[in-house]
């Protein structure tokens, strides 16, 4: 219809002047890209100052009639290119080369569903990291590469074990339950993939080779991800892999070699030997013995145990392409030795990508990424015995000369298992071997129906086959069962298939408004199977095979989940001044009750480029303000609606109820968010400031809560509770120096997220993390009214003046004074106040500020790049220290043990009266074990840190030399990772996660319990391209 009006107006304009000027004048030509000569389809050609225009076709060819116009000037424009104007001057043929817009003013980013958009047109917070930024940090786990690069993102690496998982949270966590995921969706080349972590191993996104990644776009809030549906309720990480480019053939080879050791260790006392209550006791596991005498040997058990780990990586890739097709093939091999004996990680990967234009309108893409990895590691908390081993005993001597195992504590034969396990022996004999076969396959077809309409279909599948084997060799310590040997094998297969169909429409209406519309359909299908075989009691002590065990049991878990969604996206762009966006999506999920399994959620966004309304000047070149509001949902964990039975392994067998009560009335969780922000650019883009404020509320939390067992069950899944997350993100980029030889760029990200658990079911005031309950007195948890990623525990008793209250012997007391509903203290019959010993909120594991500052300098062929990663605030629960104290090994005992002190506090005398404490106490084993260790607050530490995350110096061989060697490019670089860590934290590296990233809810990030220490490294890399 509109084109009819256009044609009509063409005719009128044509005919009228035709009577005046009898000549007709047409201009035609081809429009190409100035850099690579490719033709540009759909470029617009306008007679300047008029509404008359045309568009280039599939061959880049345009034709426009300029008859009747006096001195016509043609203006050519296309997204991502600078406009080009030329006077017609009577010519009939004008071929045009368009220049790509410089990066300073425009960025094409990949948004949801793989659609490329100019960032200026987007009204939500979105940030991109390019491959060169990813490469500098030399992190093998893609999640770790994002650390400090994106505002609003909190990354926590689990430990220094090679192949360890890493957790990523965007704008905090918005679900409190263990069973609900808080991490963003990972999408690779348009297909959502699985990023779970099984068996305390690595997360699946780390299987992707960093060197294959072209760019990573982070979509932060629900608006940005509203089109992905409920999997992206926590944001989305869009990964685009490299592709071949037409006309360019490249062979790239690179190799890296790195050495790493522990960056920081907890301090351990070196003065006291094995024993109990000050007396040497060779049967004790503790080091509460007497002081070492000058004649004693003090073994360096920890130093001798940890070693330097080596890493090697090899990458070979070939990319080539023509106008019709392009291909990218890459292979990589990574092998990494850990600092903990017996640990290593190796990975092989092949990525095959091809894209072909079947004809002018149809393009096909196919890609297949095959990865195979193997990780050998120990069990959780394996540093426990390393740190606690008495120093009077040589831990490295764990065999007698005759080959028999040497134990710390002499026991009678057959009972030796009542002993701490020697870490060397354990590393040698009780490994966990974790094998992953991961295949990501994707195919897509795009069909340009007309110049306005386009259809895309994508089908992808992510298949993981994982095999885990944990061996507890006969002769192990711990229990009779360990002593007899055990093997656990877990066989996991998981498939995630995604099919997306999209139809897009782009056009201009009313001349000034560009409209792009999209409708689509998503179908997701997931299937998982986990088979566990566990056996006990070895027959032959040397055969580590399940067949060799007497007592074998197997169990299997099957899950299935399916989702169907339809979605639509509408965007309006008025003269590139005002941008309006609307989305709507409806999902149907198999995990919700059939009667109520559908839910709809919309979003709306608005942006205004103020700089277009103001006169252009050299100072403010761009000023956009934006705001948006969105809703997104999360569904329930699968198979949770009805209570099931599980087999009983007691005598007689049979079935009994397992933990979960059913709930036939489950609803989806909903998050509602709004966001405002501004993107300002100064001095022709040399200075960039981007500021965002967001506020999100998540309600109908799908709580998988423990309930009173008096209900008959242990856990119930139901909806209740709400969480708020609000915060700011600030991005600052500055080109400090830019001249022919020297450039210096600074880029910094600052973010702050404040969360609050606003509501919980009436009978729940706390929500502890199930896998973090290692110590009664303090644990990771969520507490009503406080930040979500909390620590909850016990504390010393204090009165209303803030004085520490001690007992009549001078020892501190634990708890809070009990108050009634009016806030009055409650007294017992002796006039003493009653105590509430319940645990309370102690700290917040989420930092107050996360700051990342990256500097990039280059001088001729040299470049230097370094990043400071600063966290302000954020607490870590240091249970490593708690358990070391209980064993008498913590470093603080050097100074404090056997000192006497008078606690600065008061004694309760009754009826609300207190007197000053004068009682002297000795800080001995009784003090630590009976008093200090019972206040969990003693182990909550501020984990603020300043860290030099990486520093990389690289040198590019000058073209003159590399040409002589027949190489396109040769680059040497050396990187230092984690070389400098400044923190007041008393333990090892405060960036730690006890259980790994595989947990839902707030997880165990910020729980320090005997993980393998984080590492620092030096890495040398050689990159060449042919």
């Amino acid at each position, binding site marked *: 219809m509109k084109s009819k009006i256009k044609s009509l107006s063409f005719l009128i304009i044509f005919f009228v002047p035709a009577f005046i000027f009898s000549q007709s004048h047409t201009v035609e030509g081809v429009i190409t890209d100035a850099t690579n000569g490719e033709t540009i389809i759909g470029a617009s050609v306008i007679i300047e100052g008029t509404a008359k225009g045309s568009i280039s076709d599939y061959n880049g060819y345009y034709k426009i009639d300029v008859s009747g116009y006096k001195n016509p000037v043609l203006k050519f424009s296309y997204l991502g290119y600078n406009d080009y104007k030329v006077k017609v001057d009577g010519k009939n043929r004008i071929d045009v080369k368009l220049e790509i817009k410089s990066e300073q003013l425009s960025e094409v980013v990949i948004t949801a569903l793989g659609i490329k958009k100019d960032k200026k047109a987007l009204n939500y917070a979105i940030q991109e990291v390019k491959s060169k930024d990813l490469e500098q940090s030399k992190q093998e786990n893609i999640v770790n590469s994002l650390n400090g690069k994106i505002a609003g993102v909190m990354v926590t690496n689990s430990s220094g074990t090679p192949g360890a998982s890493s957790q990523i949270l965007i704008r905090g966590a918005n679900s409190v339950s263990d069973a609900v995921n808080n991490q963003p969706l990972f999408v690779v080349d348009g297909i959502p993939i699985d990023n779970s972590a099984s068996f305390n191993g690595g997360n699946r996104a780390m299987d992707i080779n960093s060197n294959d990644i072209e760019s990573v776009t982070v979509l932060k809030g629900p608006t940005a991800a509203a089109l992905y549906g409920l999997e992206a309720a926590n944001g989305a990480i869009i990964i685009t892999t490299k592709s071949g480019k037409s006309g360019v053939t490249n062979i790239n080879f690179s190799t890296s070699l790195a050495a790493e050791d522990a960056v920081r260790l907890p301090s351990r006392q070196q003065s006291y030997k094995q024993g109990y209550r000050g007396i040497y006791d060779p049967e004790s596991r503790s080091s509460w013995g007497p002081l070492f005498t000058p004649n004693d040997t003090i073994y360096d058990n920890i130093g001798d145990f940890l070693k330097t780990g080596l890493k090697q990586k090899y990458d070979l890739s070939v990319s080539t392409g023509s106008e019709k097709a392009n291909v990218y093939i890459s292979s990589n091999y990574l092998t990494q030795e850990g600092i903990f004996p017996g640990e290593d990680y190796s990975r092989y990967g092949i990525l095959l990508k091809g894209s072909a234009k079947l004809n002018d309108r149809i393009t096909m893409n196919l890609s297949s990424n095959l990865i195979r990895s193997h990780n050998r590691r120990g069990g959780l908390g394996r540093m426990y015995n390393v740190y606690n081993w008495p120093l009077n005993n040589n831990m490295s001597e764990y065999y007698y000369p005759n080959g028999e195992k040497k134990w710390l504590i002499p026991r009678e034969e057959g009972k030796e298992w009542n002993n701490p396990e020697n870490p060397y022996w354990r590393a040698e004999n009780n490994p966990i071997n974790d094998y992953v076969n991961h295949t990501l396959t994707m195919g897509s077809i795009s069909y340009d129906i007309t110049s306005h309409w386009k259809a895309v279909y994508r089908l992808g599948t992510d298949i993981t086959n994982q095999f885990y084997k944990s061996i507890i060799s006969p002769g192990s310590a711990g229990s009779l069962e360990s002593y007899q040997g055990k093997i656990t094998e877990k066989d996991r297969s998981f498939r995630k298939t995604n099919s997306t169909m999209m139809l897009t429409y782009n056009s201009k209406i009313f001349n000034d408004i560009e409209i792009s519309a999209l409708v689509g359909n998503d179908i997701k299908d997931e299937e998982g199977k986990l088979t566990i075989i566990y056996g006990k009691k070895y027959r032959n002590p040397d055969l580590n095979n399940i067949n060799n065990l007497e*007592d074998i049991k197997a169990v299997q878990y099957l899950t299935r989940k399916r989702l169907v969604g339809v979605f639509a996206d509408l965007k309006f762009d008025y003269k590139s001044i005002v941008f309006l966006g609307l989305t709507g999506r409806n999902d149907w999920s198999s995990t919700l009750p059939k009667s109520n399994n559908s839910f709809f959620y919309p979003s709306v966004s608005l942006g205004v480029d103020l700089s277009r309304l103001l006169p252009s000047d050299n100072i403010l070149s761009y000023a956009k303000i934006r705001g948006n509001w969105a809703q997104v949902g999360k569904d329930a964990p699968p198979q949770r609606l009805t209570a099931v039975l599980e087999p009983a392994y*007691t005598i007689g067998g049979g079935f009994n109820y397992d933990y979960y009560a059913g709930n036939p009335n489950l609803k989806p969780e909903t998050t509602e968010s709004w966001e405002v922000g501004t993107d300002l650019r100064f001095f022709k883009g040399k200075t960039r400031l981007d500021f965002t404020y967001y506020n999100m509320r998540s309600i109908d939390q799908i709580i998988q809560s423990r309930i009173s067992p008096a209900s008959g069950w242990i856990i119930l899944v139901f909806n209740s509770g709400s969480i708020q997350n609000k915060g700011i993100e600030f991005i600052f980029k500055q080109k400090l120096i830019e001249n022919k030889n020297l450039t210096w760029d600074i880029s910094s990200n600052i973010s702050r997220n404040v969360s609050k658990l606003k509501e919980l079911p*009436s009978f729940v*005031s706390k929500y502890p993390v199930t896998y973090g309950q290692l110590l009664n007195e303090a644990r990771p948890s969520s507490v009503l009214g406080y930040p979500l990623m909390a620590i909850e525990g016990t504390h010393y008793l204090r009165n209303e003046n803030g004085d520490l209250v001690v007992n009549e012997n001078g020892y501190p007391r634990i708890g809070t004074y009990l108050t009634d509903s009016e806030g009055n203290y409650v007294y017992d019959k002796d006039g003493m106040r009653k*105590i509430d010993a319940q645990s309370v909120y102690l700290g917040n594991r989420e930092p107050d500020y996360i700051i990342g500052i990256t500097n990039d300098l280059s001088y001729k062929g040299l470049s230097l790049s370094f990043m400071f990663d600063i966290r302000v605030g954020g607490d870590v629960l240091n249970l490593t220290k708690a358990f070391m104290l209980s064993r008498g090994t913590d470093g603080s005992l050097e100074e404090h043990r056997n000192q006497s002190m008078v606690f600065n506090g008061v004694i309760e005398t009754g009826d609300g009266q207190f007197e000053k404490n004068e009682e002297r106490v000795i800080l001995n084993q009784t003090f630590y074990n009976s008093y200090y260790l019972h206040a969990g607050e003693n182990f909550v530490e501020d984990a603020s840190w300043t860290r030099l995350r990486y520093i990389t110096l690289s040198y590019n061989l000058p073209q003159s030399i590399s040409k002589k060697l027949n190489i396109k490019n040769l680059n040497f670089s050396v990187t230092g990772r984690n070389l400098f860590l400044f923190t007041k934290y008393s333990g090892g590296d405060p960036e730690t996660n006890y259980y790994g990233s595989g947990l839902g809810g707030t997880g165990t990030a910020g729980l320090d319990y005997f993980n393998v220490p984080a590492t620092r490294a030096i890495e040398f890399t050689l990159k060449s391209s042919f």
Partner: protein
Amino acid sequence: MIKKIIFLAVLLVSIASCEKFLDVNEDLDSPYTSTPNFLLPPVIANMATSIYDHGETDSYFTQQVATLSGYHYEKDRWDYLKAHRIPQWRRHYHNISINAKHVVQSAERENSTNYKGVANIMYAFSTLTTTDMFGDMPFSEALTGNPAPKYDEQEFIYSEIIKLLDDAIVTLENSDLVTCRKMTSKEDIVYGGDLKKWISFAHAIKARALLHLTPNVNQNYTDVIAEANKALENWTDAIFNYALGDGSALQINQWGPSKSRPDWDYRSNILDKSAPSHFMLIEALKYDEEDSIITDPRQPLLMKPNNKGEFLYVYPGEGKSATLSETDFPDLYNSYVTADLSPMLFFTREELYFILAEAYFQSGNSNDAFTALTNGIRENMIRAGVSDSEITAFLNGQTVPHQSSDLTLSDIMIQKYVALWLQGEIWVDMRRYGYSDQIYPGLKRPKRLAYYWDADNPSEWIQRLPYDTETEEIYNKPELERLGAYQNPDWLKTPMFWAK
């Protein structure tokens, strides 16, 4: 345009077939229900674990055993404010009762009244042992999926227990084995499906429950005696025979030297870090420590001396001297109840005799009391492995009276104390009699109790456990506050309605 229509049509069709596509939420691993023969065995097996759990807690309160460290929060200091978990709670509701209820539902569907009766007896038995530990607890609103059921009064629960037992007795007496599903030793490891024995067991539990009400709530010894005698008419001990198991962690007696701890919510025994208390060894077993003379022939069968032949004890809360090691103390393993394959004793013949002895004595019939006492001692000694001659020698010796006129209540209760070694029922006895120094001469509180126990009041004893701190304090806090049980040390001092 036509393309658009086709597209929309396809979309609509696919949405309609959506329903079927999404119907995949059924659990593929596990069934939702089953027939009662598959549902009964775990109820009985979990009851055995529960009996262990009760004994493992209570036998330290009654000072049959004491820890060698003296440091144990719960056992030595009666400090439950820091307790992480009280497993008996969840064992009763989730492991036993909801499954017993499921047996009843499943049995009612097919009219297998034998299964229904047996399941209800187990439910009543577990409710009794649990309420004797906790007092008021959810009953009428329990087991319905209600996440925070209200707590009923203990007195009401007791009347409900009696009702359950009476109904079960009637059900079983009227069971038609022809129409009921078969119950063999495969499903019923205790009695092999013999309903008459279950009826006797129900009478025995009734006798125990009614005895608990004496002497403080009522003095109705007649019914106690009637029920106990009814049980004895056709009595086989109700025991759980671990020798029939496969030796795996879940299928051995947790009292055994393997210290089995099948899963995170089980507790392994600490007998290797415990020893008989002074009260047990010297006052109850009457061991002459000066001249090393063994008075009670059960003593060497309950504990093995050290390699010097000595029997050492500890005082609760004091711990062993630093100069001694664990091996200096008696080995408590491999007695008739502490071997890996020892049976778990639900209810023994000797307990019935002791119930009779106490009831007869309190109602003035010392002759029948004396006979019952002698029978009880004899039964227990046989079970422990004492020879006939030693039994006779003991009965004629100095420890027990030789005629009914010399009989005291203390004689009965002390002998019951020795006979019910490591069983929770003794704690009920002690509380019924207020830990009296007359009944239990020489019994003193542990040395280093937590600060909220009055050090100057020797009659302030532990009367109950707090509700499971891991769940009730968090998930049912309002009910705890209503009862005054929330983080309140005085709650532990509050006697049961049947205690002194």
